[in-house]
């Protein structure tokens, strides 16, 4: 039996591994990143980088200060100093603006076609300039000027026993964890549920199932296929993990990698192991349900119909996970963190953000493991019952019928 499960798993695994579609799946995230980066670069490259030309009508020192900081303010100070001439040029759209400064006040005139001017930045600069002018007027020392310029400092701190304060970056990573895991699980489930569905539908539609079941048991086929697809998932995750480790090793001394490290500094390897295991348990449960659902289909055309329950269920952790990244302390989120099929998307984030402790996290994981074992055990009977039946009925209706108890098992 064990040998048969291994054979079926190997056949399923190698069969898929040899297909171009699997390698397309592996490369898809990289292609996505490349395409996104390409589009971003293209947009940035095509964006107008024109510098606004402004006529400055102001006291000489202010005007000179603006000239000295043209680059930072992204402006070009025009040589025009006469107000009426400047307005004339503005009306003719030869320049982008006229900045009139008098004492503490100033007016910036622009025309509709003017290149954008970052007014906040300009206002900040002029405020500081006015402050410096006033300080000079009142004969203040350098130290007094600096003191006046310093803004009020307010920092926030959460006091928690036995926990050191995260850096802002690490805190941001923790907040985003629920979001990231929810999306990852959703993508994995959508992809692999469809793969296992196609695998079983192929065998049913090509009518090879009787030949397979004569050579092995329905249980062997069922567990073997799930295991084969799980190997495939682990291969994909393994390739990504290897690439990440390689990148870290090669670039560990680079400045950029140090920034990345600071982001992930608050999450321990044990935490990542826990999260990975939980995600594998969670997605495996979805795979088991997908195998059960696929056993009722007659051919490829019914796959999407049979996969509908999985898609709907997988939407729950996706939606809750994304929402919980901003509201992790919510009671509903806390409860759902213990619910199998949902927990894997919520509990790691709860743990990372100290809304749950390790004991609670382990309980949640154990509940999911027990649920996986029960569903897998129950599923093998349904699989055996459905896999040789070909009905014209709606796939969902068949699935429902199959779940109802019958007098004799088939």
């Amino acid at each position: 039996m064990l040998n048969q499960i291994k054979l079926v798993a190997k056949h399923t695994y190698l069969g898929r591994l040899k297909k171009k579609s699997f390698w397309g799946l592996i490369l898809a995230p990289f292609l996505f990143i490349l395409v996104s980066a390409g589009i971003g670069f293209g947009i940035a490259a095509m964006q107008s980088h024109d510098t606004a030309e402004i006529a400055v009508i102001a006291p000489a020192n202010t005007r000179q200060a603006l000239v000295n900081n043209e680059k930072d303010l992204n402006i070009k100070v025009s040589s025009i100093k006469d107000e009426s001439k400047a307005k004339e040029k503005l009306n003719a759209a030869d320049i982008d603006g006229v900045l009139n400064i008098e004492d503490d006040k100033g007016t910036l005139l622009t025309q509709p076609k003017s290149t954008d001017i970052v007014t906040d930045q300009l206002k900040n600069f002029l405020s500081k300039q006015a402050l410096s002018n006033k300080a000079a007027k009142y004969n203040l020392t350098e130290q007094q000027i600096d003191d006046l310029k310093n803004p009020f400092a307010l920092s926030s701190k959460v006091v928690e026993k036995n926990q050191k304060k995260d850096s802002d970056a690490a805190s941001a990573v923790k907040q985003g964890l629920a979001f990231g895991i929810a999306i990852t699980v959703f993508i994995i489930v959508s992809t692999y549920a469809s793969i296992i569905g196609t695998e079983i539908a192929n065998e049913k539609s090509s009518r090879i199932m009787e030949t397979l079941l004569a050579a092995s048991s329905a249980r062997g086929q069922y567990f073997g296929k799930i295991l084969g697809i799980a190997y495939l998932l682990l291969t994909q995750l393994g390739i990504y993990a290897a690439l990440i480790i390689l990148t870290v090793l090669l670039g560990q001394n680079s400045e950029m990698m140090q920034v990345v490290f600071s982001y992930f500094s608050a999450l321990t390897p044990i935490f990542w192991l826990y999260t990975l295991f939980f995600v594998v348990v969670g997605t495996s449960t979805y795979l088991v349900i997908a195998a059960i659902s696929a056993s009722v289909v007659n051919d490829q055309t019914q796959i999407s119909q049979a996969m509908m329950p999985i898609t709907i269920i997988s939407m729950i952790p996706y939606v809750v996970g994304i929402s919980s990244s901003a509201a992790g302390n919510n009671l509903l989120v806390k409860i759902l963190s213990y619910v199998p099929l949902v927990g894997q998307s919520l509990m790691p984030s709860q743990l990372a953000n100290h809304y749950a402790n390790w004991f609670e996290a382990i309980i949640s994981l154990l509940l999911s493991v027990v649920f996986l074992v029960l569903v897998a055990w129950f599923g093998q009977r349904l699989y055996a019952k459905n896999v040789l039946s070909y009905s014209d009925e709606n796939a969902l209706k068949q699935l429902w019928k199959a779940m109802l108890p019958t007098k004799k098992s088939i």
Partner: protein
Amino acid sequence: MITVSHVNKSFGDHQAVSDLNFTIEPGEVLGLIGQNGAGKTTTFRMILNFIDADSGEITWDGHPITQEQKQKIGFLPEERGLYQKESIESQVLYLAQLHGMNKEDAKAELTDWMNKLQVVGKKSDLVQTLSKGNAQKIQMILALIFKPKFIILDEPFSGLDPVNASIFMDVIKELKKQGAMIIFSSHNMDNVTEISDKLVMLKQGHTVLQGPLQEIRESFGRTRLFVEAPDFTAADFLDMEGVTKVEARGAGYLLYLTEEAAGHAIFDKVTANGYIPAFSQQPPTLGEIFRTEVATHA
């Protein structure tokens, strides 16, 4: 020995198989015949434990068939199915291993079987490139490569030309000689007659005929008489007592008799003037019996 004893199976209100009984000894070929929907495939599925019988017992050497024994059954299903995008070798080795065969042994056997069944193609060919007949041969190889002691063949000859059907029949005869227990279904009564030791005929799940082939035929009496007598015409034969129908067959005539005994008087008449080239009194063919039984139990 395989024993099917008082087996019943129904699907809802439909009685698919009713009180079915038969045995198959080593080196014996059992032909399971019947119209479509008679219960043949259901019987095979129950033996293979794909579905449970409602009642009755199916045993191998007196014990219910275990999962391990089931793996040793060679099965050619009625619905042919192969992995279309896999090579011949890949899927034969996979299935052979599932049946418990060593991979290297299966590799060696595959070459022999492809030669024996005259498969046109290479081991590396994808199944989707094979003709229907060749794909069926691969399916037959899948059922037999691991040297099963018990073989179930559901419509093995359907879709085959006479030459390939003959190849399949030779293989079945060889397996029988080697001591395999074989049960098969077919709608081609000539093939059934050629290779079966005994028969079970099902009609709507009920057994209407059962026993050794020759005994079944004899039980209908020798009411078919082929005569080559140059001095006699069809009209002459039709006037004879006990003759119901006359058909021209080559150089002679086939006479349909009401009873076996009528043949004696006819023999005396046609040989009154001495030698005639042919006089052969036979029971009805299996095809005739099949048609009669289908009509009788309608």
